């Protein structure tokens, strides 16, 4: 938050919701269903609702049935019933079908674009009287004198790269509300601040994350089998790294393909983007995409920590819901139903008591938490590698999580092995022929846009560490883990008397950023701080 010389303009609401994803919109809709007179606003940093949303996505419809009982009569624009599930174990050259684990049986579920789903939910919220403001980023928290959360501060617009006001400068306003609902999604930057300030994670494990990279393809006619859901584990990841792929066959020859990989991987040379592209070139996968073209693409981190990493979800004046809290069910690879249900639960909690107090207890006693508790040991089971992970997963599934044990999560940033301790890694990567050529070509499909003349929204807290320690210890992993090529080490040649010296510096191509938050999570020194850029900046995802 910057110091301001003049008083900011203030708008007042009963409830302010940060983030127009499935959790935030569900909360807004349910609030107005329960208490039509309540003044509810939703602010969203993307220029249009859904433009920063990226998800698989196969969703369980029960939560939507509860929220909008008539939804099936006018479903979202992309909504294809799942016809068949497939799961396979890949090696570099082969594919072996596996039995579908019960959590991943998708009968009755739907393949959607979560972005399109949110864009479809938003007008329904507006019809109930919710004020939705896309293009406005919550840049700071407004605290009351007693320390409680009292709303949010919208970021200033029209500030140049040095922080000076431009001709178009517009001061952001404050939105005050007795209750603020944080629905920013995975690793929200204000949620992160609040979790630290109120020590909400004092009694929970460190959070665990993954990165998901996704592309939407128009495949050659005849190749798409609408309703087919395909997942894989194994290649191109080694057995120490947790992750897998998804291919969802939609309508109109459109296929969503993506790759998710846990951010606790240990190899600093590893590039999740390259792993995804290699997956697309697997002999069993590549033919699907040959002759097709990419429609859009992008990346987003996923919250994987589950029950043991769930922070306290209430603080004075504010609540955490959805992935901002961390409610995704990883073995199901689904978070949307949890997000919607937590939004609704928060709404009824607010409608009943007009206070944040007690929400943590309510959430922990709810079916949302029961679902997470059942599968709590599956993700950490994979800390010991793929094979032991699969065994743990089988045991935990058979016993429905009733074994009296809880495995623990560790912090992703601490999992990298130093270069000097690395065993040489053999990567039999193939030469790629499918688009995109590289990360820059990929960013083009995210249609990401940031005014170049604005403050860099990726703050490096200790720039010296990048050059000195990080280069030596990890070889600048930021230049590889970022799926959008934001981080680049650049050598400056300086010619002086008596010879030339080469100095390296970190160049931050902030305009490429797709707001996935990987850097904020994975940077081993925790010196990258992702803050929100000017409202309306960022990717313009279409149907992701």
């Amino acid at each position, binding site marked *: 938050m910057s110091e301001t010389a003049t008083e900011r303009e203030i708008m007042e609401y009963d409830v302010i919701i940060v983030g127009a994803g499935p959790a935030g919109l569900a909360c807004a809709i349910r609030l107005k269903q329960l208490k039509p007179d309540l003044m509810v606003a939703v602010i969203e940093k993307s*220029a249009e609702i859904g433009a920063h949303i990226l998800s698989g996505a196969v969703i369980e419809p029960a939560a939507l049935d509860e929220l909008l009982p008539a939804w099936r009569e006018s479903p979202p624009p992309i909504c294809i019933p799942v016809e068949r599930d497939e799961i396979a174990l890949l090696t570099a050259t082969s594919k072996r079908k596996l039995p579908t684990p019960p959590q991943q049986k998708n009968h009755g579920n739907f393949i959607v674009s979560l972005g399109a789903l949110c864009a479809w939910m938003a007008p329904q919220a507006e019809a109930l009287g919710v004020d939705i403001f896309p293009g406005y980023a919550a840049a700071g928290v407004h605290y009351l004198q007693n320390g409680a959360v009292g709303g949010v501060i919208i970021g200033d617009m029209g500030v140049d790269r040095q922080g000076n006001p431009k001709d178009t400068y517009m001061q952001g306003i404050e939105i005050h509300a007795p209750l603020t609902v944080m629905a920013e999604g995975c690793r929200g930057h204000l949620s992160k601040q609040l979790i630290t300030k109120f020590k909400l994670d004092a009694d929970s494990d460190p959070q665990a994350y993954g990165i998901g990279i996704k592309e939407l393809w128009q495949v050659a006619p005849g190749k798409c089998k609408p309703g087919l859901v395909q997942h894989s584990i194994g290649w191109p990841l080694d057995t120490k790294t947790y992750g897998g792929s998804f291919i969802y066959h939609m309508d109109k020859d459109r296929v969503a393909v993506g790759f998710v990989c846990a951010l606790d991987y240990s190899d600093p040379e590893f590039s999740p983007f390259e792993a995804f592209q290699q997956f697309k070139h697997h002999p069993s996968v590549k033919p699907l995409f040959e002759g097709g073209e990419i429609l859009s693409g992008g990346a987003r981190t996923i919250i994987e920590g589950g029950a043991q990493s769930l922070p306290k979800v209430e603080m004075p004046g504010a609540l955490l819901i959805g992935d901002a809290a961390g409610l995704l069910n990883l073995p199901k690879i689904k978070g949307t139903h949890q997000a919607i249900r937590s939004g609704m639960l928060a709404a009824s909690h607010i409608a009943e008591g007009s206070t944040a107090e007690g929400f943590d207890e309510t959430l922990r006693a709810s079916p949302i938490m029961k679902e997470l508790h059942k599968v709590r040991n599956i993700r950490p089971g994979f800390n010991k590698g793929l094979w032991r992970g699969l065994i743990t997963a089988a045991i935990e599934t058979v016993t429905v999580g009733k074994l009296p044990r809880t495995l623990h999560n560790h912090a992703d940033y601490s999992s990298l092995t130093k270069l000097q301790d690395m065993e040489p890694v053999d990567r039999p990567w193939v030469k790629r022929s499918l688009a995109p050529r590289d990360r820059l070509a990929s960013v083009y499909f995210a249609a990401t846009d940031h005014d170049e003349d604005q403050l860099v929204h990726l703050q490096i807290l200790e720039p010296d560490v990048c050059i000195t320690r990080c280069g030596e210890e990890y070889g600048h992993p930021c230049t590889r883990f970022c799926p959008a090529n934001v981080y680049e080490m650049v050598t400056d040649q300086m010619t002086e008397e008596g010879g030339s010296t080469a100095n390296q510096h970190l160049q931050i191509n902030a305009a490429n950023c797709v707001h996935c938050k990987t850097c904020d999570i994975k940077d081993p020194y925790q010196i990258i701080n992702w803050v929100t850029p000017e409202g309306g900046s960022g990717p313009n995802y279409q149907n992701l």
Partner: protein
Amino acid sequence: MKILVGIKRVVDYNVRIRVRSDGSGIDTDGVKMSINPFDEIALEEALRIREAGLAEEVIVVSLGGNECQQQLRTGLAMGADRAIQIDTDADLQPLTIARAFFKIVEKEQPGLVLMGKQAIDGDNSQTGQMLAALWDRPQATFASGLSLSGNTATVVREVDAGLETIEVDLPAVVSVDLRLNEPRFVKLPDIMKAKRKPLDVISMDDLGVTAENDLKVSHYAPPPKREKGIMVEDAAQLVAELRNRGLV
């Protein structure tokens, strides 16, 4: 004086345009739509003229279905006083748009009509000129500077040879270029105020205008894909490759 500003709903400039596979047009499914950027500049200029005390009212006008109300509301949030939607689902070409605008001009009697020099979808650059002809009033196109004094507008135009300054008598049609100004950001409370500003819907039929498309588009096609380049070792190989292809 009233200022009438034409704004068009177009595919956002950041969006990657895709031609539909059957060649019937551009794919707009799930695509972000915005005010044509040149029209946004026209509106900004109108607002500045009003703020300078040289106009009393700024009216934004758009043609299309209900979806274009979104852009009209944005125009109202930027500061326009009221909006008019000419309701039609017809396929629109510049002459039809100019005819419909002319009906509104006759009704509202503006002292100045501002619009973008072209829309970034069709790139026609015709509507303003056609409107001026129908109205039988002066036109000044591609304005990168505009000042009003009494009954004249002084317009700086970007032309091939440099800058050209012309004077036109008002009322007139002025179409604006990129460098005229930088549009403002919309203030959040103004979005709320915009919801309460008047937005009149008039059907194009009621204006007595029908879409007569003299121009038929046979089909759309994307530009041919660029062939992959090759890396050459040295100048000799470069020359040899160029010779092989018959380029030198």
